[in-house]
């Protein structure tokens, strides 16, 4: 699978560093004691800037998905069909990802999933999700 390798923004360095150990982190606002996504310097609920990285469970459910029948950005004709999904993590935040490790036809909204890792060229890993259990 060919993927566009994500740039590392200044703030999200700890997130990407943790992926080297295949650990999924989420940014938490210490004032709200709540996670948010995507990672940014301030909490999008209160504008507080005391943000802490905490380990995520790595579990969630498929919130919505779309099977790509032609290659999207960074992908090749050999990669299709593949599934892009929004994953609702157990912590309550929603992130874009891929569902891999099962046929696209077997993906369903509400399906439990667990994080797995797609290696990137620089030692980082891209979080993707597979059916849980």
């Amino acid at each position, binding site marked *: 699978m060919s993927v566009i390798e994500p740039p590392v923004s200044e703030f999200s360095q700890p997130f990407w560093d943790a992926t080297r150990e295949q650990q999924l982190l989420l940014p938490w606002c210490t004032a709200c004691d709540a996670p948010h996504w*995507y990672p940014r310097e301030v909490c999008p609920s209160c504008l507080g800037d005391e943000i802490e990285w905490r380990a995520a469970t790595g579990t969630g459910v498929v*919130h919505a998905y779309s099977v790509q029948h032609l290659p999207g950005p960074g992908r090749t004709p050999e990669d299709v069909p593949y599934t892009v999904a929004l994953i609702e993590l157990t912590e309550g935040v929603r992130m874009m990802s891929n569902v891999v490790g099962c046929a696209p036809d077997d993906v369903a909204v509400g399906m439990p999933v667990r994080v797995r890792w797609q290696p990137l060229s620089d030692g980082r890993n891209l979080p993707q999700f597979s059916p849980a259990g």
Partner: protein
Amino acid sequence: MALTTRTLRGRSAIVGVADAASPTGELDRHGRALEAAMVREALADAGLTLDDVDGVAAGGNPTGLAEYLGIRPRYVDGTMVGGSSYELHVEHAAAAIAAGLCEVVIGVYAATPRSDRRRRSGGGGFRGPMPGPNPMLEWELPYGMRMPMGAYALAASRHMAVYGTTSEQLAQIAVDTRRWAALNPRARYRDPITIDDVLSSPMQASPLHLLDCCLVTDGAGAFVMTSAERARDLPKRPVYVLGAATCGTHSMISEMPDLTTTGGAVSGPAAFAMAGIEHADVDLLMGYDSFTITALLHLEDLGFCAKGEGGAFVEDGKLGPGGSLPMNTNGGGLSYTHPGQYGMFLLVEAVRQLRGECGERQLPDPKVAVAHGSGGVLSTMGTVVLGTEV
């Protein structure tokens, strides 16, 4: 002109301010983080919180800023004319507040050209602003979603899962829009299509087929506005702006708060209320149809049917010629034209219908038309109510 002065005088005020500068000529923060700090400080100065804010003014990318700050604006001003942009933002906001479009507007500016040079290792002679964070490149693009249809496909996926909406129901929208296109000699595609044609067209990004997607065509348009008073002296029948409202909910699809509800649920009722119309008064709906799901969400969010009932609502073909809710009589983005930003064509067709200039597809004596535009990926909705009478 005098009217403008009278309308705006004393109708708004600046209630909070902030700025940042340093003797070193450099600031610690930059980009969005610096903008956020200024907003936080100005809100504190005003005794207001983020929850009070419903308007965002920022040159360039105001929706990206709003998303970053967690604001869902009812008013967006991205005016970018250089150094005086911020005076223009104040002017526009004063008008918007006086008109009741929004209540609390934040205006923000941040630039750090001096420290950018240091941050940009081996930065050479480039003096432009430091590129801001690009959350889409970091958090969406690696997953290979085809844009823009993939974003709409996610909304359709969720709508189907939650409400049982079917591909056949979405296809009905494409079928009825094509029926209108058949009556428009300038439409890109005019041959009739069936639900089966839509369902058997190549899957692009499930659950959207090729015929669920808008065209890619050349296109152009323009409009001219003047005061109602002057309009009455001009040769053509005036088409009055009766109501207008905006609502933004996100910038990237992964940040859309509810994939089945757009900002139209806010902008639609607000524009209708301003115009003093009910749904039964609407003779024509020009609803931005980048994809079939886009149009279906408009029907629900504008309140023509209840949330989740859009599929059943369209099944009887009421959107097509002879139906009870004519939609996209020019053939829409699905069959007439779609050069990328289709909103202009909504307005042009609405005006022509209200003037009675639409030939074979002309509606019988329409008095009220709604042009409802969608920007980004279901991100920012703008509703305009037009009518032949004030």
